Each structure stands twice: as C-alpha cells, then as structure tokens.
C-alpha cells in the first residue's frame, strides 16, 4: 500500500472513463475485502478524475455540502483537515456515508446507490489531499473573490451627546 502511494506521483495515470462493470461489482466486497483489494479499489477511485468530478456534483446534490460545506464543515465536521473521527480509508468513509454516524451523520442507506457512493468517497478523500494529485480536484474557486479589506479607518459614529429623550431622567 505504501508503495502504491509513493508511486502515484510518478505514474500520473489519468483515468477518465466511468467505472467498469467489474469495478462496480467489486465495490460490494469492499467492506469485507482483503487489504490488497481495498487498496486496489482505493487507488482506482483516487486517480479517477471523472469519478471525482462526478463525486463533487453528487456531494452537492445529496446536500452533503449543507452540513460539511466545501470541506470546512458546519453542522458536520470538516472533511478537508487531517483529523478523522471514523477513519479516512475508503471503506470507512463509505461506512460513514451509508450507515451514518451517531453524532448526527445521517445514514444514506437506500438513498444513494452504491455506484454513486464511491465517487463521493473519492471526492471526500480529495478534499484533504488523500487522492492522487493528478486527478483534478474540482474546488469551488468562484466564491474565492478578492478578500475584503480587513481593517479600515473607523467610520462608525462614537458621539457622546445625550439623546434628547434621556435629558430628563426620572
């Protein structure tokens, strides 16, 4: 596994087709898969930019974005940082999504077909840089406009005159 990870940068493989039937089938086994197989699946999804772009769309469409924002979190924890409560392995993320988690992560079991869960897994992993760098990370850059001036001369009034209505305290 380590070796596979370290090879990524050199290989720069860019897979752009949709998952093969075989791959679709093997996803069912992921939860019980041997380490070797889950590593294979992980690598495949992490490098698949088509899958990741798909994942981003699905992440928005299934309202993940409402709770986790674009990775920074909100009602749900951030997904772009290095901290994981339930683990960053694809099958663990799969588990978070499909079965839910006790402190407020809803179960999407029966709501998202498995063929769509895996691209979401790949996208979630890409937020914290766990996916292959060569697979494009479709971030939302359009909201990243110029930063507002952080400190500007004070324009707020600070008068110390008494209001008319306060002039005759009772």
């Amino acid at each position, binding site marked *: 596994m380590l070796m596979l990870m370290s090879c990524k940068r050199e290989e720069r493989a860019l897979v752009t087709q949709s998952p093969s039937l075989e791959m679709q089938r093997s996803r069912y086994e992921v939860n019980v898969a041997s380490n070797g197989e889950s590593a294979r699946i992980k690598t495949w999804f992490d490098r698949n930019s088509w899958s990741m772009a798909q994942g981003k769309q699905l992440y928005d469409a*299934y309202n993940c974005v409402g*709770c986790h*924002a674009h990775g920074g979190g*909100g009602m749900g*924890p951030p997904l772009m940082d290095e901290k994981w409560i339930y683990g960053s392995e694809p099958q663990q993320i799969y588990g978070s999504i499909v079965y839910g988690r006790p402190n407020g992560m809803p179960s999407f079991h029966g709501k998202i077909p498995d063929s769509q869960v895996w691209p979401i897994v790949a996208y979630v992993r890409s937020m914290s840089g766990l996916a292959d760098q060569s697979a494009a990370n479709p971030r939302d850059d359009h909201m990243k406009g110029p930063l507002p*001036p952080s400190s500007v001369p004070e324009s707020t009034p*600070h*008068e110390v005159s*008494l209001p008319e209505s*306060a002039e005759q305290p009772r």
Partner: protein
Amino acid sequence: MHYIGLMHVSLLVLRILTRASLLLALLASAATAQPSAEDGQWTMPAKNFQNTRYSALDQIKIDNAKNLRVAWTFSTGVNRGQEAAPIVVGDTMFLVTPYPNILYALDLKNKGAVKWKFEPQPAAAAQGVACCDVVNRGCVFDKGKIFFNTLDDNVCALDAATGKSLWKTKVGEINRGETMTMVPLVVHDKVLVGNSGGEFGVRGWLTALDTNSGQIVWRAYSTGPDSDCLIGPEFKPFYESERGKDLGVKTWPPERWQIGGGTVWGWISYDAGANLIFYGTGNPAPWNPELRPGDNKWTCGVFARNPDTGQAQWFYQWNPHDEFAHDGVSENIIVDLSIGGSAVASAVPSGNNNSDALRTAHTTASAMRKVLISAQRNGYVYVLDRLTGQVLSADPFIRITASKGVDLKTGRIINNEEKTPQIGKVIRDVAPASAGGKDWQPCAWSPRTNLLYIPHQNLAMDYEAVEASYIEGTPYLGANIKMYANGGGKRGEYCAWDSVRRKKVWAIPEEFPVWSGTLATAGDVTFYGTMEGFFKAVNARTGEPLWQFKTESGIVGQPTTFLGPDGRQYVAVLSGVGGWAGAVVSADLDTRDPTAALGFANAMKDLPQVTAKGGTLYVFALP
C-alpha cells in the same frame, strides 16, 4: 431614595417568606401587567414579559463599576457555545448548558455549589441537525417549575426545588431536521415554545403546552392553510398585503409551504394589558428565493396572538419573499413611546414612585403610542404600533445594500434589485449578510435613558444561489455564502439607539461580532461580552467604557443581574465561545473553506487566534 427603600423591603421579603408564599408573591406579580417593584430576581432570560432586560437594581453604578471583581465561577462541563442566561429565583440560580442540555440549580448562599442537576439525555443525532452550533438559550421559571427545551425537541418541566422531572413532551422530529434552541415563555399557565430548523425545510410553529400536564393546548404553524395557522375572524392585519384567505398556501408554489420554514426560534414578548403575545418567524426555506416565488407567508414576520387560544390578531412581514435568510425572529420589546412629541416615558416602571403618575399623564395626553421596538436582522430598527401592527418607523442601524428602505404606506421593504439572487450568479457586497445586522442576540431597553442597547454584527456577504434538492433531514439551502466585514468597517458593534429621534446615539466598534446579549440597570450601567472573552460595563448614557474583565473564552451568553442572599447586587454571564459566529472555534471548523459554517467562517478566520473553547459561569460583585 424611595426605590432603595423598596429594595430593602423586597430583600426582607425574600428572606422571610417560605417557598410557598414566595411563589404566591411571584404569581401575583405575574398576574399584573407590569412587574411591580424590582424584586432582585431574574426569573426569565428576557427579565420580564416586555423583554427589556432592564433591572432596577442600582448598587453597581457609573462611578463604582470599575471595582467589579469575580465573586465565584462555575464550570458547566460543556465546551460549546454558551448562549443561555443564568436565571435567579430566590436563593437559586438555574442554567442550562448547550447539548446535552444539562440543567443546573446552583446555591447562591454557597458560592454556586450544585443543589441538583438534571440530565435530559437528548438524542446524539440532534447535534447533526443544529444549524448553528448546539446552543440553548435558557430556561424559565414559573410557579415552582423550571421549563426548558432540549435540542432533540423535548419540552421539559422540572420541580424547581428538587430537580425532579414533572413531565417531558416531545413536540418535534429531529429526523426532519427539527431542533429546539429557544427559551420558552410562560403565560397563563401555558408554556410557549417554537422550533428551529429553517435550514432543513422544517415547517415552523409556535406551540402552547399546559404547564401542569405537558399536554399540547394549541399549535400555530407559520405556513399553510389559515386553520393550521390559527388565523380566523379575529385576524386584522394592518396592511392590505397580509389580507386574504389561506395566504400561507397561496403565496407559495404548490405544496412548498409544507417545507417552507418560518421556524420560531427567537423571543416571545407579552403585553398583559392587551393580552397579546408577539413573536417573529424565521426565514423561508430553501434559502434560494428563486425556488419559491411569492411572498412566502407567514415567514420572516411578526405575529400578534392571543396566548389563551393562539388565534392570530395581526401579522406584519419584515421581509416578504426573503432573499437572504434574514429571519424575522428578533425580540419585540414592549414600551410606550410618545412619538412625535418631545416627552417620552416608558411603560416599564423604573421603581420610581412618580412613574405611575407620569404614565397616566401621558396616556391622557394621547401622544403615547403602545409600540414594539425591534432591531431586525435585515438591518432596520422598527417601531410598530403593537395593537395594530402598523409600522411607525424603520431606520437602518448598519450599512444596508440589500434593500433601500421601508415604504411606510404599504409597509413593504424596498428590495435593491441589483442584489436580487439568480441561480449561478455570485452577488457581491450584500449587506447585511445572512447573519443579519443582528442575529439571535437580544437587545436591552432602559426606561431611564430611553435608549435601546443593540449588540450586533456588521457583516456583508457574497451570495451565490444554486439548485437545492429536498432530502428529509438534510439542509435545504441552495446558496453558497461567504461573509466579511461590512463596508470595510469592524465586524461588530455595541450601540445605543434613540427610537424617538431615530438615530444612533453612541457606538462602540468591536473587532468581532458582538454575539452576546446585554442588560441595562438603574445604575445606568449596561453590560455585554465580546467574542475575545471580555465582559464589559459601559456608561449607559455616554457609551464610555467603565470596566472590563477577560474571561476564559469568548462570550456569547446573556448577562443577568440579581440581588444575592447577602443583599448585594451581582452580575452573571456565561463564557464559552460558539453559536453560528463562534462555530469555527467550538466545532473546530476549517477556515480555509470560506463557505464553512454556512459562510460565517470566512469572517471569523482570526477567531481561533484569540480564543479557545470554554464553558464557565462568571459571577461578579463589588468588593
């Protein structure tokens, strides 16, 4: 002088009365329109039915506030946003923590030792559907009972003396995204409670439960047919646009009212003379307005209802077809103003024995108007006639670009067309941001200065409307947001507002949103807290800072003041940053994403550098 005498009497009364007779005394004062004399207690978070947060205690004054020091502290054991008010009844203080909503009774005769605590054990899953941190805004006392709501939609009634659970009623459904964060109000033996969840397409309501049995007496929805909204023959709104049958259905695309928001998560005030309650309704769902053409009644407005039947008397909509999640839930403070004339008096007695005479004089002069004052999220301070719902004035208290004013003829806000959201377009510099000119944090009103004290933020935003799909129990928004300082100013401010002259009298700029509540006293001192963690005392007349104390964490709570068993005046506040503004710290959000915390994170990037999580009660007194 006379009023100091009163204080002594009430102190004596407090000391000698048995619990039962004390409760009778409280009952008597609750039955009259106004809290008669200051009794040194603080039995509901807003202090009184009028929601003035004004105490007639005056031991702490302009010239001695600088001597305030910590009397004792208490750790709540919960490190999330502490938005609750510590309330005081006799010798006991009660406070409720954020999720898991532990209710503590603390002994004031023993520096806050725990008398009892109650753990309602709300469902853990509720945490995931609380839009803006897992906050709770407090508990309320009435006739020997403590009432509060849990995040997972249970209304709890406890025996105030023992902490024994009297009843617990489930009134909502977290699987739909419904939570509860507001403080109940008790009127005529009914606990009035409302729901949260406007970000989840929850259908808003206000519900009345019987204080003795916990049974639901009535429920008034904020959307849907008139029968569901308890709109009947008594309903006489001031403006044409609020008249017609089933507007809660007709002002929506087909069926959309069922997931239309209008939740009731703010404050309720009560005018005993008119027997009317007043409360605001939250934003319509989804946030993206393009997906719900129409006025979206009865969201983003204020209802006046009969507390006994729930029947609506009038409604006024701050934001018809709200575009920017400018919930209408700000507190509606009950005062009587002489509008247009020079003399001003307030309905809230200051404890001065002349006030009755004064009030009568003004009533007969007929210049007096019974009004509501409300600093709304959309950035205006409104003055409404509380008997009719007519808008008497609406003036901006911050820079506003989202709208151009309020048409006093039609009552309708004039939206700025340049800022109208459109799917796929990023609109820049929308002010106020969706968090509003002011959010949940309640104002105070002093009858001595006739000023409204407004703790608030000053934020604008970039707003991108996107598609939204409704999936039960998940956010129903359709908007990407990024907030920042409004017009290059500071992000927060604490100001004093003159509702008669309709202008800001003084203002204290703050680096971060002022997300705490505030209170005013007869010592002409007001208090508020900052997100850095400073608790501040201010000269109520001039805004001159008098004193500050740095607490362990940022302050987003509601200060209260009371007379201790030793006859001294105390001021209490919870420290512990959080809430929507402070979620970047309390929920460890990643501020590299400007849209985190529904876009608030972008404005709070530097908060983690000045404060960390906390959960401690501070009680201050003069030496």
